[in-house]
């Protein structure tokens, strides 16, 4: 297996990209729908709850040492029961990857390339992702470091040039939608992307300096979540909560509203680079995680042999994963039990299992650590 490592800073960038990717397209509409003018507050609320999840995930990561979610689960719960849990986790990652791929495909076919069949967008996008995943996590981390500048610049550019069109009236009365609808809105953000962060446990073992890594994760949530909430806030400020909820892709609509003195307009496609890049990174993390996890699941030495067949499967799955956009919208609204199972229950089960195992092992052989445990077991 590759011994590549990434720095905590690179990990933070990956967290930011992971949070913005595809959520930037999906999240503002349901947020404005459930919490009206307070959609952005609901988003902040959801993100703050995310801190608790990060603390949980970090705790798990520390407990399982430098093993991935899959390795640790198989160790803790044994070859058979562990693999059952792993199967669910891997299916979760793989299906999520196909959904993310479909998001960019749907966006392209709705807004830009209406007559191009979905498959071709997916194949072209997937080719780059496979290439990236082949190069390993270190290259992914370094390219994230490069592209984060572009993404931040484009987002700041978007925010700056929209300032003349902000209507402060659109967010008033603040907190007027009521606590209930704000909490309901925050579930949207928890579904996509907060609970999806469990996937990052697949690359967390590759991060150097674990103490700094937790900080990096939290900072990543602050920045990524901040950007996401700002996007929602700007959608509501410029378009109003009603039109934000009416539009399929409010962010694109937002970008098309940029008009500087009549000559700088129609530049929405430049801003669209933000989600093409962020979705690329989100997909690459998911895809790398899925390939690595399946390799560990099947005891395959190198995950790279799996990349091409899994990629082909992913393209097919992304086409059949949902029949139409209305199905997806319903799915996004009602997905909470599914996400909570994979984002909270399974990791929590693993944590308890790992803690109990650690304790019993410590009683028996006080000097031994996680890695040695595994050897003893096998």
């Amino acid at each position, binding site marked *: 297996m590759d011994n590549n490592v990434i720095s905590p800073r690179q990990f933070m960038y990956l967290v930011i990209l992971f949070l913005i990717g595809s959520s930037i397209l999906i999240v503002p509409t349901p947020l404005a729908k459930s919490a009206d003018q307070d959609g952005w507050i609901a988003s902040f609320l959801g993100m703050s709850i995310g801190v608790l999840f990060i603390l949980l995930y970090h705790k798990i990561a520390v407990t399982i040492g430098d093993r991935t979610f899959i390795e640790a689960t198989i160790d803790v719960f044994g070859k058979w029961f562990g693999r059952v849990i792993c199967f669910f986790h891997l299916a979760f990652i793989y299906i999520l990857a196909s959904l993310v791929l479909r998001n960019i495909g749907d966006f392209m076919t*709705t*807004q*830009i*390339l*209406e*007559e*191009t*069949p979905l498959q*071709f967008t997916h194949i*072209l996008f997937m080719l780059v992702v496979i290439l990236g995943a082949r190069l390993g996590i270190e290259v992914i981390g370094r390219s994230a470091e490069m592209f984060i500048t572009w993404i931040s610049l484009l987002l700041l550019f978007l925010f700056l040039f929209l300032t003349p069109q902000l209507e402060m*009236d659109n967010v*008033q*009365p603040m907190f*007027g939608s009521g606590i209930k609808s704000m909490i309901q809105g925050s579930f949207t953000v928890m579904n996509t992307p907060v609970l999806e962060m469990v996937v990052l446990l697949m690359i967390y073992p590759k991060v150097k300096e674990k103490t700094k890594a937790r900080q990096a994760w939290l900072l990543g949530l602050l920045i990524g979540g901040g950007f996401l909430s700002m996007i929602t806030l700007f959608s509501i400020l410029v*378009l*109003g909560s*009603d*039109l934000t909820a*009416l539009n399929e892709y409010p962010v694109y*609509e937002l970008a*098309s*509203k940029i*008009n500087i003195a009549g000559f700088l*307009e*129609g530049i929405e496609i430049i801003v669209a680079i933000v989600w093409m890049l962020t979705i690329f990174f989100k997909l690459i993390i998911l895809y790398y995680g899925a390939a690595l996890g399946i390799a560990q699941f099947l005891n395959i030495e190198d995950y790279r042999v799996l990349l091409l067949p899994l990629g082909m499967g992913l393209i097919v799955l992304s086409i059949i994963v949902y029949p139409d956009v209305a199905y997806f919208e319903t799915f996004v609204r009602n997905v909470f039990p599914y996400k909570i199972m994979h984002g909270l229950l399974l990791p929590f089960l693993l944590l308890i299992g790992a803690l109990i195992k650690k304790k019993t092992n410590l009683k028996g052989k006080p000097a031994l650590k996680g890695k040695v445990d595994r050897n003893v077991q096998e």
Partner: protein
Amino acid sequence: MNNNFSFLPISKRLFITLACLLFLTGCWNSRELDDLGIAVALGIDKTQEGNYSLVVQMINPSEIATEAPSTRPPVSLYQSEGETIFEALRKMTLSAPRKIYMSQLRLLIIGPGLAEEGILPTLDLLYRDPEFRTSFLVTVAKDIEVEALLSVITAYEKIPANKIMDSIIAAESHWAATHGVYIDQIVSDIRSPGKSPILTGILLEGSEEAGNNISNVENVDSPARIHVDHLSVFKGDRMLGWLNEDESKGYNYILGNVKSTLINFPCEEKESGKIGIEILRTNAAIDATKTGSNPSITVTLEAEGNVGEIQCDLDLTKPETLQEIADKAEEDIKTKISAAITAAKEQYQTDIFGFGNTIARKNPTYWKEVEKNWDEHFKETVVKVEVKLDIRRKGTIVQPVQKKG
């Protein structure tokens, strides 16, 4: 050859090179410029049978770009009918030489018949279809068929749709008795329970026949001209009627849309001379308070202006004179605002100012009670108007030219 590929056998090198060709086929649904019929204005109305009738003004690229213009008109008009707007648009290929491309659309003109019947179903396609941007103005044709209006050739600006759009924008920032409305604003206003929309009217001056002829632009004083009119009042998505010039201005004062305008009033009751004040900037605020069972609205307007024109014998060196002029101008603004409010309350009984939205922001609990039949409550709402005008300067001369000594 000593490049990176040299380690591969020739067959593989060939394969990779050929595989690259797959990506060079270009865009799947690319459309070259010479396949596009670029539409600049779209007119929609309903026929007697209830079908949509569409009129599209398409630019004639060779005529726009040329250095030596021929006698062919710079734009052409195409028409079609259909049960839906989409059908009508696609049917247009029967008469138009190219598929119509809507991204450069400048102007949408809604026919008077359709406006009275309700425009929201019409707007669905225009807001849904990705080919339509949100940067076109929505207007209503006043007392004229859309087709006649779009057939007029304009002299100063080759493309009539651009002329109308420029006129609306110029009039709204210098005369303030009109207001350009974009598609997303009108959709938002119609959907909002606390505000009724308004739209700019477009009308034709002169003879209909003359406008449709290239000779229209061969005269210095064109026999047919497109004219931007005042605002039309809607309730929901149905047009009720029109505001006059003073009411339209009053409307724009209340909403803070006035950038620059001017105010006329006589110097003295008896004299015939008049004073013109140039308004440079205004700042309007709407506030809602609740006294007893009825809400009350306060409209505050702060404005800054200059003395623009004096036709009578006044002593402009005295500060009191300027103050007096300012008071009179304030009175004039107040009259216009009241006229607009009265028209909305009594004549049309619909809240075009968005007072409902203000109440929804300031007093959400009360708004929940009245939201259902807000237009009923709007009639009972007390509106207070406060205007403060500062006159700062008086141009390049000290006294009126009439004044001696």
